[in-house]
């Protein structure tokens, strides 16, 4: 008998107690705030230790490029094929060093891990409750972009903000068709050394969020 058959047959021979259904199990609705969503969402983001700026849709590409210039990273990852990336490339400052991430893990990884100072990506949506940003990486913005460089700048549209995780999954059941879905809340962190919180454990040390109204 294979391991699979043996395990399943033992499980089928057992009976696990059925849960007793009660009223308490229902979800409590969580509506988005109706007044000043922007300010409140920015506050939630800041609580996660993200750095936030905001702009309107029209000024967005330039506002992102300006922020990148302010940071002044040596080499920056900007996708040449994503909708956001194309808008940005049109405004690339002459002396800035921008590179398309290509296939990041199939090239010289040492360079990817050490030389890229910042990456810019778009986002899929966001969760108001926890100040979380949902990313669905694809061939235009591979997942390494939001993971390896020490600074991640992400653009979030206010119209994509959902109340909380439970509603998000109801609204986007098709997310399961993507290879990888990421919910990101603040920069990478750890409290593994004597419960002292430190940022930039393995992922980005800084998370910059551009909120677009």
């Amino acid at each position: 008998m294979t391991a699979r058959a043996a395990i399943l047959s033992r499980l089928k021979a057992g009976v696990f107690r059925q849960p007793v259904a009660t009223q308490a199990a229902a979800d409590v609705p969580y509506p988005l705030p109706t007044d000043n969503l922007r300010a409140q969402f920015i506050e939630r983001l800041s609580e996660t230790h993200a750095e936030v700026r905001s702009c309107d849709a029209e000024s967005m590409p330039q506002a992102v490029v300006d922020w990148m210039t302010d940071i002044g990273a040596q080499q920056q990852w900007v996708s040449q094929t994503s909708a956001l990336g194309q808008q940005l490339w049109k405004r690339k400052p002459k002396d800035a060093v921008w590179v398309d991430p290509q296939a990041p893990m199939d090239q010289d990884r040492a360079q990817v891990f050490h030389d890229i100072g910042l990456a810019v990506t778009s986002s899929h949506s966001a969760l108001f409750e926890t100040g979380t940003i949902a990313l669905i990486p694809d061939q235009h913005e591979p997942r390494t972009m939001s993971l390896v460089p020490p600074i991640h700048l992400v653009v979030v549209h206010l119209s994509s903000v959902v109340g909380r995780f439970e509603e998000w999954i109801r609204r986007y059941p098709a997310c399961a068709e993507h290879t990888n879905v990421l919910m990101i809340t603040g920069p990478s962190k750890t409290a593994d050394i004597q419960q002292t919180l430190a940022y930039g454990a393995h992922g980005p040390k800084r998370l910059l969020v551009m909120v677009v109204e």
Partner: protein
Amino acid sequence: MTEATPIRILDNPREPSFRPAMDYLIDKRAQQFPDSDDFERLRVQSKQLKQAALSNLPALLEQAEAAMVANGIQVHWAETIEEAQATIHQIMLDTQATTMVKGKSMVSEEIYLNHHLEAHGLRAVETDMGEFIVQLAGETPSHIIMPAIHKSKEDIAALFQAHLDVPYTLDVDELIAIGREQLRTEFEQAGIGLSGVNFIAADTGTLCLVENEGNGRLSTTAPDVHVAITGIEKVVAHLADVPKLIRVLTRSATGQPITTYVNWIHGPRKPEERDGPRAVHLVLLDNGRSQLYQKERQQESLQCIRCGACMNHCPVYTRIGGHAYNTTYPGPIGKILSPHLTSLPDTPDHPKASTLCGACHTVCPVGIPITDLLLDHRAQATLPRREQWIWRFWSMFNRHPRVYRMSLGLMLRLYPLLPKWLGGWTRHRAAPALSHQSLGQKMAARPKKGVQSGAAS
């Protein structure tokens, strides 16, 4: 599971107190559940979700497997730790990788994976900061969420200095930066990555991982091959159940409303994608779980989502630390789980080493009645003959007041004749002094008080 392993309390008297660390975690959790009614509602909900999944476990496992296979994930089943070791070893040989980068996985500890791979000339590198520290020190995790909680900043500084050839520093940011640099070179080279899994959604075949550091994401993104390993009890029915369980998991574990990363994996990279592993494997481990599933009461321990809250709140764990248990899973959950996991040493004393204070049960986000299960373990245990006789006498004395009083009086009078040497107890302490009067005598000698003043005191 050969010989009985007692709880080792005084093995390392230098191990610092866990109190401050536990207070920190207790406090952070409490802030996340300010309203006890709300906690109760969430707890009932999570418990029901886990119980509903478990009551349908074989069908859900089959459904999950079909969904994962359709997504391109290769599913392996392992009845024993040897099978799991061999499966992962073989995948590593097929990949021709010599180093494995590991995200945090308690199940990989349960199967002694690092040890097995090292015995075959392969390297396994822990990349979670806490696990990395523990591995450098040649130890095992003392807590399932905070593996290096028993180490002080000074310990870690000295450890890094000795092993990594870096200057001694007590700056935590610098220490983390050292770990980050060190492990980046591993991620650059590793051909295979391993991770645990927090939840598997049967309807979509999703592997869900939660973490704060990003090493879990790196281990499942940078290498060409990703191997996930988990116990068969981790399956839930719907992807929509996962956010509800994460809600209580991260709040109970580290007092966070959500971890930095929630990572959903649905398969290897598609042809058009530019990164991600080219192959994804999942190893489903049994190791005694299916036998546990057949046990009417004890089966409830399979509901556990490994948040660690029961450890943080346990007065015994806080006092003795995780290593004292000598099992992969320490603390209250370890006491009810370890006896069923066949790879772990026999620990007949563990269920007795509890005050039954119930703190674990009170905080458990999936409502496992840990104290009841401990009592059940005690009831099932066969006591040594001598202990059986002692309890039989004890029960006889307590059922016969006259015999009780007579022998107590005798005891008090003969007490000076008792030996001053009482085995292990007197090696470190003086023998306890008995009172010259029994409690009954003292009570009788007290002036009678009115009910009123008694109630007011």
